[in-house]
């Protein structure tokens, strides 16, 4: 059974249809890249998979291990193992990062019927992961993402990914706003999480990120559809020729 199956997904926001019948299948252990120009519907796809309100699914379905994801609340999806690394992680003043991490992890564990982490075990785990991602301890004491640089915010997303151990990671424009050093640290963090039981969907506008996170499959999106799929060499092809060629395919 595939981990994620998106079948003929049609999505509207208010009166405008954004996705016009998108299909995508992701198996455990695979890394898929979704590329496409701005406005092609990449972020919409990630939001709909994560369960963000404001999108109306008019047709099609999303199955996660064969279960209908669209019937689940965002927190149920998270507990099932769906993780969205946000393009723009929000700042939550007054909620210490540590408190947030513990509350979220234990909420997911509770939903799965697992026991909550004890404080020492939790602290140990966070410290280990934070160290590997070059996240200083004082960052964990601050409010969630408050005063964090762009790179720090993205590393905080990866920290959560490492902590929650999801089976499907969707990385929405992880490279946006990052300089090359920050990108490398973030990509190393992601690569460390690649495993046979975990799939990743890497959404990006630029091929650059795929030099660091090398995908197994590349899909090109244009105007709300996947217009071409291929291996990692497709990304290089795109880098050379741009997205214009696909505009016609979609039209």
């Amino acid at each position, binding site marked *: 059974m595939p981990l994620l199956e998106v079948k003929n997904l049609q999505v509207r926001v208010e009166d405008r249809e954004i996705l016009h019948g998108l299909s995508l299948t992701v198996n455990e252990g695979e890394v898929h890249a979704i590329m496409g120009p701005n406005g092609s519907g990449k972020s919409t796809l990630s939001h709909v998979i*994560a*369960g*963000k*309100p404001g999108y109306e699914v008019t047709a099609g379905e999303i199955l996660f291990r064969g279960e209908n994801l669209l019937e689940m*609340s*965002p*927190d149920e*999806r*998270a*507990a099932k193992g769906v*993780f*969205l690394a*946000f393009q723009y*992680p*929000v700042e*939550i*003043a*007054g*909620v210490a990062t540590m*408190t*947030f991490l513990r*509350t*979220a*992890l234990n*909420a*997911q564990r509770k*939903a799965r019927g697992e026991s909550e982490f004890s404080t020492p075990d939790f602290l140990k785990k966070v410290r280990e992961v934070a160290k590997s991602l070059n996240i200083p301890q004082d960052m964990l004491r601050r*409010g969630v993402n408050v005063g964090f640089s762009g790179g720090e915010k993205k590393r905080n997303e990866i920290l*959560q990914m490492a902590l*929650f151990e999801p089976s499907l990671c969707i990385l929405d424009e992880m490279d946006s706003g990052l300089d090359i050093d920050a990108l490398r640290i973030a990509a190393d963090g992601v690569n460390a999480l690649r495993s046979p039981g975990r799939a990743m969907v890497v959404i990006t506008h630029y091929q650059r990120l795929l030099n660091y996170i090398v995908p197994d499959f590349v899909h090109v999106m244009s105007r709300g559809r996947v217009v071409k799929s291929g291996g990692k060499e497709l990304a290089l092809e795109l880098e050379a020729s741009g997205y214009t060629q696909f505009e016609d395919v979609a039209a």
Partner: protein
Amino acid sequence: MEVLMNVALAKMNTEGPVDELFTSARGRLPGSRIVAEARQAAFDEFARLGLPHRRIEDWKYTDLRALLRKIAPLAPAPDKAALALASKAVKSHAIKGTQKLVLVDGVFAPQLSDIAALETGVRVHSLRETLENDSNPVRADLLLTKLASGAMISLNAAMATDGVVIGIADQAGISKPIYIVHVATNSGTSAFTRSLIQLGHGARATLVESFIAAGGAASYQAHDSVVLSIGNDAELEHVRLVEDAPDAANISTAVVTVGAKARLNTFNLTVGGEVSRYQAAILISGEGAHVATNGVNLLNGRQHADTTLVLDHVVPHGESREIFRAVVDDRAHSVFQGRIIVRPDAQKTDAKMMTRALLLSDDAEADNKPELEIFADDVTCGHGATTGALDDSLLFYLRARGLSEKEAQALLIQAFVGEAIESIANDALREFAITAAQRWLAARG
């Protein structure tokens, strides 16, 4: 003719029961001669003004004629059974490391208080014994305040059955918080209490007040006033916790005078009561004083809670800060009125006030009325007020991380009130206030 008759009828309807309230209580009100005269004068003032209503500017949002309708009759003095119920309630509201002074249905209960174990430098008498001490020439002054006329403070002066009179010696550093617990054990009646606290020069102390119900007491009214006098260079932390029964009313007034270079840090949390009003008049009478008055209202159902603060800077170099947060759910109504007065001589005053309300339902209401009255020209003053709902993008982020809707809301609400609660300096009291807030959040389900 008919019109005239209606007027006459209306007058009888309001005044009759009001007079009865006082006359029937008189036999139980401590103090004779000058005290009784002061009570009569105070009651006449109340009878003249009547219950405050919406056409009186200060009470615009809290119309007691509509919300209370009438003042409930005086609660009977607590009997053995009432004291036993109160004792149980006090135990469940215990705060570690405090020295308790317990008032049950408006009567000081020494047997429930830590009166024998008071810290050196703290003197406590009951208001009753002080008013009944005929050799005390200033005893009637205990019923006066420097506050300009006000119906509710006058009613309180007329009807006060008891309270505590606390003196803290000059330079005394009192380490254990003094904890005044107001317990209601009787339903459908009123308790009138009045306490006076004088903090000597250079003294340091912490005062906590809480309002609770015992044994399922319901529909009662707590009428309290506190007169605080903070000496020069003295330091007081004052925390109030209003956790009355869901259908109770609490009308409280604080009249505070702050001396030179003194520091006052006050915090009020209202989670209980159907109708509550906390009004504080703080007079900064000495130069270089620092006052922080913060508060949080956590309201649901049909609760109505009003916090009205008047900060009066009359001398130079005063500093005042107000942080107020309201979380309003269901059909509840939160009111914050903050007035900062800077008198002509109060140059170099630095006064700031920030009030924010969070509405959790479409029917919730919050009224914020910040007012600055500035008569000096070299001052720094500012205020801000916001009202809004929880941020959807923050809620989604938390839910995408596995928090249920209620858990996500709870975390954001805690963060919202956090800044105000964190202002409590005493660790045990801060924890107690946080726990009370968490209880409120947990009760939302």
